[in-house]
């Protein structure tokens, strides 16, 4: 799984009917040290995260792995907010 910062939201009236009820957020990918990467994701939000929060994304086929997202054709899902990371002996607070 990867992490990223939520930088925006998506408003879409004409969309796949199965996407009803999901907030679509724009997430800019980050590496584990907190530096930005080049990719952006549009992810469905399952836990109610807002702008400027560092969230964890499940991408690919595994995003269908829960009751809410099964057979919904969603491939990027926000599943957790990451506050702090301890790596290489030092703490990084997002």
């Amino acid at each position, binding site marked *: 799984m990867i992490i990223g910062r939520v930088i925006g939201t998506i408003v879409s009236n004409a969309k796949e009917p199965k996407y009803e009820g999901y907030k679509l957020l724009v997430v800019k990918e980050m590496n584990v040290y907190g530096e930005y990467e080049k990719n952006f994701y549009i992810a469905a939000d399952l836990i109610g995260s807002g702008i400027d929060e560092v969230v964890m994304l499940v991408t690919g086929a595994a995003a269908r792995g829960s009751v809410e997202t099964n057979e919904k054709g969603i491939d990027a899902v926000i599943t957790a907010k*990451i506050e702090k990371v301890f790596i290489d002996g030092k703490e990084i607070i997002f």
Partner: protein
Amino acid sequence: MFLAKVIGVTWSNHKHYSYEGIEVKIIQDLNPESGEFAGKPFFAMDAVGSAIGETVAYEISFQAGQAFEHATVLTDATITAIIDSVNIDKEYI
């Protein structure tokens, strides 16, 4: 499954309900022949309670969610085994 080493842990107060009681670790791929790191570090759920510095095996994609007994967890990388030793026949290196 792939070989990796646990290099970090995370704190997260607000998670998906299927993550209850499961920790998120940071792992990085390991080259079995040379033992050096490969690729970039990323996050993985921990089904076996591994600690920092341990060599582990992890599953990716859809089956990663099936590695837990009690429920299907929404994850695309799960640590499923803690590895004690890797033996590679000299002839193949």
